[in-house]
């Protein structure tokens, strides 16, 4: 059973978003890391670049597959998680503690449209 913290919001593409003040942290869910398997490389977006919601923004590569990450909410990249450069497997260890990037100047409206933990959990059940 996948771990789904209730304080985050989710997309059907298996990204999560956590708000902290003016910033939005974005990562992939436990389900996503488990499905991908051992992650060997993460391609992160350039800092300062703006992305629309649902625009391809990053790539997570595992031994077996590549998975595109679609930006969950419109915004500007404030920071990327550089730790992932040397240790992409941190996402396998804890996909919620290890975000991919942080957005600033994001649209709160987009955030409100995301799934809450319960809805995401229900969605995962439909995939089984």
């Amino acid at each position, binding site marked *: 059973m996948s771990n789904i913290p209730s304080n985050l919001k989710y997309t059907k593409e298996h990204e999560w978003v956590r708000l902290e003040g003016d910033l939005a942290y974005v990562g992939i869910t436990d389900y996503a890391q488990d499905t991908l*398997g051992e992650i*060997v490389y993460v*391609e992160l977006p350039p800092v300062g670049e703006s992305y629309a919601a649902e625009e*391809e923004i990053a790539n997570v590569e595992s*031994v*077996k597959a*590549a998975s595109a990450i679609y930006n969950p909410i419109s915004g500007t990249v404030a920071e990327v998680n550089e730790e992932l450069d040397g240790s992409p497997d941190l996402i396998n260890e804890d996909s919620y503690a290890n975000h991919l990037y942080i957005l600033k100047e994001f649209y709160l409206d987009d955030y409100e449209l995301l799934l809450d933990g319960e809805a995401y959990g229900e969605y995962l059940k439909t995939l089984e």
Partner: protein
Amino acid sequence: MRHTPLYEEYSRYPGVRMVDFGGWNLPLHYATGITNEHHAVRQRCGLFDISHMGECMVSGPKAGEYLDYLTTNRVASLEDGQIVYTLMCYPNGTVVDDLIVYRLNSEEYWVVMNAANTAKNLKWIIEENPKASLYKGEVKVTDFSDHISLLALQGPKAEAVMAKLSPEAASLKFFRFFSDISINNIRCLVSRNGYTGEDGFELYCDNEQAVDLWKLLLEAGGEEELIPCGLGCRDTLRLEARLPLYGHEISEEITPLEANLTPFVKLDKEDFCGKEALMEQHLKGVPRSLRGIEMLDNAVPRHGQPVFLEDEQIGFVTSGTKSPTLGIFCGFALISRQKGLSFGDVVEIEIHGKHKRAKLVKTPFYKRV
């Protein structure tokens, strides 16, 4: 989806991940993951179920001659108990499939092929190749694919494990086989070969006995820490060892000469299907060839990604991965030849819309000592 006789057995392993491999439901990896399984095979040993592979017996007084015509390597000169890696080509020189051929005796040859190509191959061998009608009635082809299971025991400790079950089989030399080995009353054909770049054995038995053989091998390999391995590490292992994969390094659009499989193409043979085209390619020089690539910018190269030199596309990636043994991002690309590129030269690969630098390197990436 199709299953091998070991399908029920997989569910006994918590955490096993299954994959649809050309219509076959097979383990991609078990709970420990692809990387650990890869290391197990490099350092100790691993056990693969590859029962999806196709097998047929080609028999009759002219069976050897026929296979010698149908494939690029020397089959006619094999000795009893010897095996050969060979390629079956179309008249235009591109590849129908790559095969392992076992000579049981002068009138019986066991042919092993890729699962996804089995139906196509049988058609080609039985009726579609240019000399099919000439040999009709003189050569018999019997498909055993649905009746025979195949397990691969691979790794430096494979011999020690095999010795516990059959000292005779453990004494096999590389690319040799015994056709009638009894392992706890299970009749097997055992050969010394594999697809991992390590020492190892492949064991064929009747489907009904596959589960017993699987269990016997795992039990015998307890001390050597033998573990079941999935198709995921089979791919990373073969890639490091520069063993081609059909549909990637070779295909109906790629010739063996382009894929640098020249040692397995005997152009001095009197005749074989595809010889004329391959000879012409050999004399004129191949238009493109397979090169090893090592990424300078981090990214995983994957099949089909375009390769650029400056702004011109000069080829595409055939396979790529992060090598578990070396820790580098590497793979192969089929690159146009006239560029005069050499080892150490830098090309660019388009990965997720971005150009990433890679250098051409010598292969194999891994060679056992």
